[in-house]
């Protein structure tokens, strides 16, 4: 492993792990408390359409993905807004499938198989470039500045949008900002874990942390730490066993998720029994 650290690709992979963990922890916490985990899967898959379009037009795929990811996040937000809006799950499903379909059609039209596309589907932590890292760092800064600045508004709108509106908060705007940040974070993670698995890395750390803690700030920090631990241990194991890192990281996340829930279930039922006894 220490030999491997001498390689540039490995250093890049480690830096990418750190940078993506920050986005995971901060945005993942907001996604989880808003019960919008499926949203991340929907946006990620929808942006496949953007990737396909970028390939067909010979543009950088990152920009295609980012544009469509932002559009679908805001589109889902607009469609589900208000009492007369569509239900979130059908809006998410529609964007999910339409994006995938558009991507396939674009790839067919571009007349090539586009092997590069596979790295977007399944991630390529070991081929992250310096440019990707710079972009990821900038996105992290953006996320931290905006979430830091609007922290109390984001928490309040997530908790009780109606009350926030009465207190003069522009809830539609706050929600739009949150969705845009989620879209940005998803594209950043997609490059590393792949669009198929981004949902897991985004939501599992926060969902696990939620079982053991209260408080949004604490959740964001601890989720980042867990995401980083998953990224690093998954990467290490993948290199050791010569397996795809994205998949190994997600498998580890899955194990942690099920393990944490099993533990919390036992803890809660033990607490329940203790409470019954003491009565």
């Amino acid at each position, binding site marked *: 492993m220490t030999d491997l650290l001498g390689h540039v690709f490995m250093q890049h992979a480690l830096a990418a792990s750190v940078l993506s963990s920050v986005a995971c922890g901060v945005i993942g916490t907001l996604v989880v408390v808003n019960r919008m985990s499926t949203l991340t899967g929907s946006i990620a898959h929808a942006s496949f359409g953007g990737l396909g379009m970028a390939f067909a037009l010979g543009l950088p795929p990152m920009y295609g993905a980012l544009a469509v990811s932002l559009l679908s996040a805001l589109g889902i937000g607009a469609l589900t807004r208000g009492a007369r809006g569509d239900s979130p799950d059908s809006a998410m499903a529609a964007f999910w499938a339409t994006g995938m379909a558009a991507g396939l059609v674009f790839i067919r039209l571009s007349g090539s198989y586009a092997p590069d596309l596979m790295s977007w589907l399944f991630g390529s932590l070991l081929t992250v470039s310096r440019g990707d890292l710079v972009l990821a760092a900038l996105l992290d800064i953006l996320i931290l500045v905006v979430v830091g600045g609007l922290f109390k508004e984001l928490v*309040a709108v997530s*908790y009780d949008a109606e*009350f*926030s*509106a*009465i*207190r003069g908060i522009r809830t539609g705007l706050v929600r739009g900002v949150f969705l845009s940040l989620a879209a940005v974070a998803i594209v950043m993670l997609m490059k590393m874990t792949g669009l198929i698995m981004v949902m897991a890395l985004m939501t599992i750390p926060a969902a696990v942390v939620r079982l053991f803690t*209260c*408080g949004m700030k604490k*959740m964001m920090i601890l989720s980042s730490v867990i995401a980083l631990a998953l990224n690093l241990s998954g990467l290490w194991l993948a290199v050791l066993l010569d397996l795809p890192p994205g998949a190994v990281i997600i498998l580890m996340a899955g194990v942690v998720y099920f393990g944490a829930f099993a533990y919390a279930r036992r803890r809660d039922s033990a607490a329940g029994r203790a409470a019954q006894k003491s009565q």
Partner: protein
Amino acid sequence: MTPAIEIRDLTAGYAAGQPVIEDISLVVPANGFMALIGPNGGGKTTLVKVILGLLNPWKGTVRVLGASPARASERVGYVPQMVPGYSFPVTALDVALMGRLGITPPFRRYTAQDRSVSLENLALLGVETLAGKPMDSLSGGQRQRVLIARALGTQPELLLLDEPVASVDQETQESFFNLLSELNGKLAIVLVTHDVGAVSSHVKSIACINRRLVSHGSTLPPEAVAEAYGCPFELVAHGVPHRVVGQAAGHEDGSND
């Protein structure tokens, strides 16, 4: 003195041609304590939304604390039903602090004053010791008090509560209403409920609304429903505002359910 709420010939709803409330007129004085009752779907929540400025009237005028609902909203405290329906990682103090939103602008943290006001309000409601506790871990009655503390964050002149006792036991209800009576010394209160028996001895007036225009029509005539609810005071039903009995004094118990 400017009335807390002044509504004249109000009609409002969500879908065009289907008013949920129609031709409603009522006044809540500055020191008023009014219960707003009526069956489910009768328009209680819709009326609350209009008063809060979340829904615009189709017809008629609404003045809240002498201003338009949107302008008055800073001086109105709102206590919703239990929010949200699932566990959310905030403490009681976090929730109380939300009452200070709009006072401290975006891109600024809650100030020391925000904190002291929120803690004072939690203390006023007797739940200051729970400030650091997760909302999830509180009982229904305790959570209710935290939500009222949040509503008091802007030092409102009108407090609006939507079905506040839906999920608390009888004993808690009683101390809860005593608490509201105390608060009523300083501000006007409107309480939405469908349990008229529980509130009738505490409030100064009761308004019953039942105006629904559902596409399938209703089996009971609204007058009969209103009567079933027993509204001895300001009865506003089925588009015809009519006062059955005047304000307060010598009211009979309205609970015949």
